[in-house]
């Protein structure tokens, strides 16, 4: 193969490689962005009753155990008071 033809082939190959790299980067970026959006939106869609999607339940914790509304708290000490009620076994 003549040298000039080989160099032209190499240039074409490099250009192709660059285009492929840009396309791959773009595709991966789009996938990552889409994934992040999906994860971010899951709690709000789970909390909504107006979504029109017919969807099987998806594997996500959805913050079920998130301690909102000030969480829980105990008194500071034992004061010798009798119990007002019982958290017995149900």
């Amino acid at each position, binding site marked *: 193969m003549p040298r000039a033809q080989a160099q032209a082939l190499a240039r074409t190959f490099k250009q192709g490689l660059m285009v492929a790299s840009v396309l791959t980067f773009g595709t991966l970026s789009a996938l990552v962005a889409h994934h992040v959006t999906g994860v971010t939106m899951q709690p709000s869609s789970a909390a909504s*009753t107006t979504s029109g999607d017919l969807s*099987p339940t998806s594997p996500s914790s959805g913050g079920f155990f998130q301690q909102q509304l000030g969480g829980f708290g105990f008194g500071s000490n034992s004061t010798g008071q009798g119990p*007002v009620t019982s958290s017995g076994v149900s």
Partner: protein
Amino acid sequence: MAAIVPGKAPSPAPASPEASTLPPGMIRAQFRAMGTTVSLLIPEAHAADGAEAVRTLFADWEQTLSRFLPDSELACLNRHAGEPVTVGPLLFTVLKAALAAARATSGLYDPTLLQQMIQLGYDRPFDELPATMPAATRPQPPGGGWRAIQLDPARRCITLPAGVGIDLGGIAKGMAVDAALARLDQMGISPALVNAGGDLAVRGVPAALGQWPIAVSGRGHSWVIPFHHGALATSGVAHRRWQQGTYIRHHLVDPRTGAPAQSGLWSVTVAAARCMQAEVAAKVAFLLGPDQGRSFLTTHSLAGLLVREDGTWTPAGPWPTTAMQEMEGD
């Protein structure tokens, strides 16, 4: 009609959790609903309207969510497994929360163990179960049916997989407690405590006490702990036990096996922001056993008391170990 008991002065720690005291100026009302005794503590000034609001709420929830009432929405849904069924907002909301709990616990909390419970003999209200019943004719399959449930929020439509049934017992009770407390809050009634068979939540504190002294049972011991805000729930095997063939059964079924759990625990009490969370966490920690259960609670920033079958116990998270006051007579 709810029974209402007027308040009286507090007394020293009584010998049993049932012998509870009342903060001054408050009343206790109690009634039967959802297979258990529901009690509430509210200011005397709101005795009638507060008790009636909570009683009505629990009656509505039971009528919608009971698996034992043949005309409940849940029973109708279970009869039509395999078909899309349009349901009311309450059932849709509670089932959606149950599925969120299942996802959050990787299926250790499983609302689709109805067939397993029936095969174990728990096919009617617990009060009506015979002392002994024939042995099971086949082994119980594991759970996991919840993964294939389809929800259509726009039409409030639920499709259960064929052969799968829902039992919302514990989580429905916890959510009803949360809802009752919210309703009292809307009515301007505070402080308040709502307790459905041990699943309880509080709002505000009685002025005379500055906290809510709550009895928590172990095995052979009971303690009083100072509770301030949030919810408490206990899961265990002290009650709801029966004999099937030669086996002693209980209601805490492990979805990994389809059989009653054998985790080495006697009971787990959990504190959380909401009763729904405490109820689910107590059940899951019980299934996981002492070590993994404790890790589960701390991972989710919850507090708990895990009591082993031999009566020894271990706390999890910020459980108030040093403030536990052992009750007389235990």
